[in-house]
């Protein structure tokens, strides 16, 4: 029996989860977004700086269109979208059913603090006696057992770390709002059965647990235990595994059969840990390894107790599930701990370093040594700690650490007051993403970060000075000893903590490294129908790639929801009380012509307010204002009764403005939306003034100055009233949307995007410039995994060609383009110069790219010097005699990552490995040399690097300044270079030389200027924001996917296609768009046409309409930021609802005094 229906469950509220949830919510899907931690934001919550801007920017994910539906808050603080229910401290505990009807069990861990009541005053923290390391600061600082999980959330409610809490009750006593409930009276009713054949163990366990006020019984054997279980209800059983007659495992099975709700913990010696782990699969909750002490046992039992006693389990049904559970980190303090992590104080992980340098971190942004507090002068970054390390089951690259380390080094250089030396020790610098290479170069050349290509075997510490000693092999081959103040370990990633658990619940297979497996040609579709994955849950991704995969997952999820044809609208739970029949369909009364009638409802917080403020004086004061019709005092607005009274008062006086004086305005966000339905008054004409903050603050600071508190309360209320009085009703007019999408480019990305849009039920016009769909897949034959691309291509082409909603224009191009988001007018022309006019709400750019041409390394002078593309084609067409290709030399980074093409094309390294292995298979005796600069095998493709080496492919590095030379004299090709490790010249007589020339985009200047969007410095699509809005153009309504965005594999390109489709659909999913309330307008009669607003508008939402000689606003692009209103000297440009009079009146009201 489920209490609620949702369209989608998103597991994990990190950036991927948020992106997916927002994408779905924007399309009117109801989303349950859960996270196991008490705060949202995931890992990014801890990172204050992201390259290249060294800002955060998470808020840029918030919807730009329909933004009224989600409060435009900092996303690290909270997410308030009307279609998203965010449930924190919540985990997925069970899942059954099929797509369109999954029954989901959610398990919510209690925090013991009611977030609706907690005001974050911190009194509890000040009295709490227990101190534990702070997770948010990675243990670099500490917090009390009652603490704020993050420093900035809204609501910023305290939570209790139950494992640390000693239940002294001090917090409960001091809490001014009764938010803490820490009752332990129920522990007596929590019955525990201890089963062990050894009396001493039974006794000590009983003693320990009774000390904690639990009720404990004992049994000496399995049989006795079963007897006891029959006689009485137990909540928890602790059982030994090795017992004579009946083993603990057997007891577990029998007990669980008869009492499925019984919680069982296995106790075991080292030898049988495997049995215990096995037992967990058959229903045991956890296990303990003998011998253990009370510090291990008691917190575990308490956690179980809390879970059982207070867990709020919820059952919901959903159409689809998106797993966005992210990753965890490799623990460098593993059994070998070669870097002395946790032993040497100045050895930190990357995240710890980020916390160190954060202004909200333990050092307040200062960079000081942790042993003696002296300023840090020299820092080493050590790459690949727990990555690319077969000894640590990590034959993969964690993909993000190189850029993270570069960023951290640059941060150290730029943020530290003292000059800091920074050295990054690395094996390959993996600058595989858009703009990464430039950032790397800038770090080295502009900021002076030093890069040493060498892996560090271990760290040691000078015991006298505490300096860290790094011994490494320098570029010259010599062993060097260098001292550092601090070492930052770039720890690799591991599957999220709950991945294995979730894989069992969802019956999902895991890949060799424990991440969720996906279907071929997708990084988001799991083998299980209806279950999708986003972000790093399927492999390691940076922010931009996570955001892309989340949108792609949202698209696939949405497809499942649409196929079920059941968008669940947010339920309107409360119907009008007075049963007034609606006379029209408009949701709200038109009050624009009415004089202001303001109702002020003041919550007295059960009379608490009256201690400080005289209600009569308040009432008297406000009654003088002719606009205020009534001031009502409500005992407790947050209770059902109080709220009911509030509603009745408002309906009775027919108010057209409402001000509620209470605490926690965000708590009322949803209530006000409901109230708006009841009294049919636009919610923007209602507001909540926080009148309790001055009271709570005074209580917390123990400065109980009645006059000051009274003034604070009055100011809040008075300014709120003034602001509401001046609030004008806003009735935006709907603007029509052309519910079609134009896709430019018929490669795999464009086709996938077209199909995704069409499958959602919207028309697509697809332009392909050539006479054949498929783009690069027409010559690519297989993936690095060895999967043939042929079926993928033919299936996709087939689907596109047959889709009734896809209109294909072959051999065509765009010749004219006008309009703006929601209504673009394009003209498409074909080879015969026949032109067709089409209208679209959105455009997806998918023009792709091609292998770059080169004149380097003797290309063109000898037929045995070919490009990777030519090799692929020749191999596929069997034009290469393997026996003749005895020695093959592949040269990477030809013209790439240097000069005018200073970017990594990302696919060339895996392609070289693919071809090399292929050639080696054809001729095992062949000598295959790969000459490379940095091997860019990110993520799981690293394993192919290992395989290629194992199969005998020979790898040699070269650097940008000393490339190999190719000589074709006398018909014989000789490749020569100086081998950098041996510093010896190497000459290879090659039968075949293969050049990896990289990718250049197919994005002409003409097309860019036609679309009115800029290109990036290398001619690729310029995104609005490289990390948070990676597929959106700066111009609203235009999106990009595939290689025109950045070089990528076919699978990745297909995912960007889905993601771009999702972005486009969120714009065109409705036939008309109701502009957001906060949108600037122009009062043309006042406008002097100085155009400063046009120059100022950061969103390009304004233009000068030459035909009518006036300033025009694009409603979709305007974000209501108010920059235009601020720059306009005479209020010709205004933000309705934010008039000067309202602002000034509000400010004025703050300074008003209440005279009794």
């Amino acid at each position, binding site marked *: 029996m489920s209490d609620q229906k949702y369209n989608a469950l998103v597991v994990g509220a990190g950036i991927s989860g948020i992106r997916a949830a927002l994408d779905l919510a924007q399309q009117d899907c109801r989303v349950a977004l859960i996270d196991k931690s008490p705060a949202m934001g995931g890992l990014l919550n801890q990172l204050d700086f992201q390259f290249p801007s060294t800002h955060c920017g998470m808020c840029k994910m918030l919807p730009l269109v329909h933004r009224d539906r989600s409060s435009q808050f900092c996303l690290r603080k909270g997410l308030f979208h009307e279609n998203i229910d965010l449930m924190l401290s919540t985990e997925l505990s069970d899942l059954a059913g099929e797509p369109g009807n999954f029954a989901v069990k959610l398990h919510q861990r209690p925090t013991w603090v009611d977030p609706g009541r907690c005001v974050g005053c911190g009194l509890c923290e000040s009295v709490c006696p227990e101190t534990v390391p702070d997770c948010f600061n990675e243990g670099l600082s500490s917090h009390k057992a009652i603490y704020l999980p993050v420093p900035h959330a809204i609501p910023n409610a305290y939570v209790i770390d139950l494992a640390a809490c000693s239940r002294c009750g001090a917090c409960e006593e001091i809490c001014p709002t009764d938010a803490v409930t820490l009752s332990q009276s129920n522990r007596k009713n929590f019955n525990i059965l201890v089963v062990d054949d050894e009396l001493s163990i039974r006794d000590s366990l009983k003693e320990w647990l009774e000390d904690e006020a639990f009720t404990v019984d004992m049994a000496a054997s399995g049989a006795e235990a079963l007897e006891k279980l029959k006689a009485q209800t137990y909540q928890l059983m602790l059982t030994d595994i090795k017992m004579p007659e009946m083993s603990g495992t057997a007891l577990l099975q029998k007990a669980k059969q008869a009492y499925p709700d019984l919680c069982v913990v296995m106790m075991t010696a080292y030898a049988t840990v495997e049995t215990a782990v096995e037992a967990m699969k058959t229903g045991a909750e956890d296990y303990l390894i003998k011998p253990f002490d009370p510090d291990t046992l008691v917190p575990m039992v308490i956690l179980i107790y809390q879970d059982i006693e207070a867990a709020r389990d919820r059952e919901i049904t959903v159409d689809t599930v998106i797993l966005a559970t992210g990753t965890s980190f490799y623990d460098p303090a593993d059994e070998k701990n070669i870097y002395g992590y946790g032993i040497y104080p100045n050895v930190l992980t990357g995240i710890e370093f980020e916390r160190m340098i954060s202004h909200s971190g333990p050092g307040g942004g200062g960079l000081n040594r942790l042993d003696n507090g002296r300023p840090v002068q020299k820092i080493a970054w050590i790459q690949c700690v727990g990555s690319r390390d077969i000894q640590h089951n990590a034959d993969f690259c964690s993909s993000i650490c190189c850029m993270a380390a570069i960023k951290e080094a640059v941060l150290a250089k730029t943020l530290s007051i003292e000059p800091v030396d920074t050295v990054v020790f690395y094996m390959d610098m993996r600058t595989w993403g858009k703009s990464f290479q430039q950032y790397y170069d800038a770090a080295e050349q502009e900021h002076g970060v030093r890069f040493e290509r060498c892996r560090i075997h271990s760290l040691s510490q000078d015991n006298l000075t505490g300096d860290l000693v790094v011994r490494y092999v320098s570029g010259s081959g010599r062993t060097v000893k260098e001292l550092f103040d601090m070492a930052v370990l770039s720890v690799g990633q591991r599957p999220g903590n709950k991945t294995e658990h979730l894989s069992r619940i969802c019956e999902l297979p895991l890949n060799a490294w424990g991440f969720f497996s996906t279907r071929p040609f997708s990084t988001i579709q799991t083998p299980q129908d209806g279950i999708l994955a986003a972000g790093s849950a399927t492999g390691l991704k940076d922010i931009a790639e996570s955001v892309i995969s989340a949108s792609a997952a949202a698209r696939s999820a949405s497809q499942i929801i649409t196929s079920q044809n059941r968008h669940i609208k947010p339920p309107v739970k409360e119907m009008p009380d007075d049963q007034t029949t609606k006379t029209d369909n408009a949701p709200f009364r038109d009050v624009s012509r009415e004089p202001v009638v303001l109702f002020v409802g003041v919550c007295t917080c059960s009379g608490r307010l009256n201690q400080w403020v005289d209600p009569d004086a308040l009432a008297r004061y406000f009654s003088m204002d002719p606009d205020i019709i009534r001031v009502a005092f409500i005992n407790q607005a947050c209770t059902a009764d109080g709220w009911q009274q509030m509603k009745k008062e408002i309906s009775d006086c027919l108010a057209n403005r409402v001000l509620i004086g209470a605490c926690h305005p965000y708590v009322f966000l949803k209530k006000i939306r409901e109230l708006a339905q009841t009294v049919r008054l636009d919610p923007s004409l209602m507001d909540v003034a926080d009148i309790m903050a001055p009271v709570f603050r005074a209580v917390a600071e123990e400065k109980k100055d009645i006059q000051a508190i009274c003034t604070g309360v009055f100011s809040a209320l008075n300014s709120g009233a003034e602001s509401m009085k001046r609030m004008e009703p806003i009735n935006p007019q709907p603007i029509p949307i052309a519910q079609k999408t134009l896709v430019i480019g018929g490669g795999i990305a464009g086709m996938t995007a077209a199909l995704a849009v069409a499958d959602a039920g919207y028309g697509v016009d697809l332009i392909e410039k050539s006479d054949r769909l498929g783009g690069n897949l027409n010559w690519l034959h297989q993936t690095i995994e060895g999967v043939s691309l042929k079926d993928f291509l033919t299936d996709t082409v087939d689907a596109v060609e047959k889709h009734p909603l896809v209109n294909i224009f072959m051999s065509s191009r765009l010749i004219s383009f006008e309009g703006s988001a929601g209504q673009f007018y394009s003209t498409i022309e074909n080879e015969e110069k026949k032109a067709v006019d089409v209208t679209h709400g959105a455009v997806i750019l998918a023009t792709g790219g091609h292998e770059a041409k080169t004149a380097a390394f003797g290309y063109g002078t000898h037929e045995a010097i070919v490009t990777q593309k030519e090799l692929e084609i020749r191999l596929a067409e069997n034009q290469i005699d393997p026996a003749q290709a005895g020695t093959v030399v592949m040269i990477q980074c030809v013209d790439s990552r240097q000069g005018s093409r200073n970017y990594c094309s990302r696919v060339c390294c895996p392609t070289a490995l693919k071809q090399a292995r292929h050639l080696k298979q054809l001729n095992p005796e062949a000598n295959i040399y790969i000459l490379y600069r940095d091997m860019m095998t990110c993520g799981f493709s690293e394993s192919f690097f290992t395989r290629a080496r194992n199969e005998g492919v020979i790898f040699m590095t070269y650097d940008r300044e000393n490339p190999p030379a190719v000589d074709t004299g006398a018909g014989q090709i000789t490749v020569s270079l100086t081998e950098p490790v041996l510093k010896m010249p190497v000459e290879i007589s090659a039968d075949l030389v293969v050049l990896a020339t990289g990718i250049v985009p197919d994005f002409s200047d003409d097309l860019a200027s036609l679309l009115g969007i800029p290109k990036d410095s290398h001619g690729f699509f310029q995104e609005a924001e490289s990390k948070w809005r990676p597929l959106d153009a700066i111009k609203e309504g235009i999106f990009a996917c595939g290689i025109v965005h950045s070089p990528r594999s076919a699978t990745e390109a297909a995912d960007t296609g889905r993601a771009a489709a999702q972005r486009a659909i969120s714009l065109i999913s409705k036939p008309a768009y109701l502009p957001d309330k906060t949108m600037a307008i122009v009062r043309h009669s006042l406008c002097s*046409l100085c155009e*400063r607003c046009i120059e100022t508008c950061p969103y390009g939402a304004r233009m000068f309409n030459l035909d009518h000689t006036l300033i025009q606003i694009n409603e979709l692009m305007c974000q209501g930021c108010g920059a235009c209103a601020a720059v306009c*000297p005479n209020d*010709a440009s205004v933000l309705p609802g934010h008039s000067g009079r309202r602002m000034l009146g509000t400010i004025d009201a703050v300074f008003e005094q209440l005279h009794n």
Partner: protein
Amino acid sequence: MAKTTFLDVADKNPLQTIREFLKSILNTDDVQALLVPGRSGSSQSIMPVLINDPDLIDDADPLSPCFPVNSARLASKLSHKPIKGKIAMVLRPCEIRALIELSKLKQADLANTVIIGIDCLGAYSTKYWAQINATDADSLPGGLPDPGNPNDPHLAAACRACEHFVPENADILIGLFGINTTEKIMIQGITDAGMALLKNLPQEMVEETSEEPVAREKAVTDLLASRIEYRDTMFETTRQAIDSHEKFVRYFDRCINCYNCRVACPVCYCKECVFNTDVFDHDPYQYLQWARRKGAVKLPADTVFYHMTRVAHMSLSCVGCGQCSNVCPNDIPVMELFRLTAADVQHAFEYEAGRDKEEPLPLSVFKEDEFTDVVGIG
């Protein structure tokens, strides 16, 4: 590169020489009309005149020390929409600078203008000029103030504090400083348009190209030094006059909200001022509230607010022409306050009103790295 020539002054009457020069400009094909200060018809007062008929050139009096309005506003009216040909405008340096500001604010289109800048000897207040003009009009041949005494105490304070007496951004410059104006007048073609126009003038009119006279540089430097000295004293006095909230309010004691300063301001360009609209309209209840809070409230209540609004809106574009003070019926030193604020504000943005046509208005551009100490980024 500027091209310098000289006009020969006949009869030791520079004004007449300049008139002839202007006439020849008006005679060129492209120039439709000439905007120049003068006495039109029976008017005795000097006001801007738009002359079309070259025979009426004797109406022009660009050397008069009378400066009743800043012509930038009028130049804006004449140029903000396309016209055929061009209008030549003889402007004071502060008028040119105001016009540059207005063009950035899209209130004027410089493509429609030929700007003839004239070395500015300063001007009297309208009141003082009326006084001496009524009594002693003929003793001022052409109304030329004594160039030997640029610090004539009767000059308007704005002029005495002005550092921009040599025109910038003119197409053609008429030079007076460092030149014996009873013999010669310097003419410079500054822009391509200006030089092209000079080329079309009759050959006998202008001498061969030559150098700027050496004395000019010294004259300009000396004048600048004395102007800066006056300006800095003025800034200091003003700063002291407003260094507390009370003093600041007192500064505007006599203001009656006549809004003359706004009307006279060349860069106050709004079609309809906020103070004429409903933006700051208050209900009677509001006045009562204020009276209740303070016990008593001075009316009109928003005089200081009005001036602060103007400072906020226009100080970045203020060119210091002094027209605000010129028109104040109650002699409030508005110019002094405006110039002080403008100096600080423009310095803060490394901006100078009227300096460069291409320089964007600071508030229209977003620079991530400015005022890091204020915004806390960086």
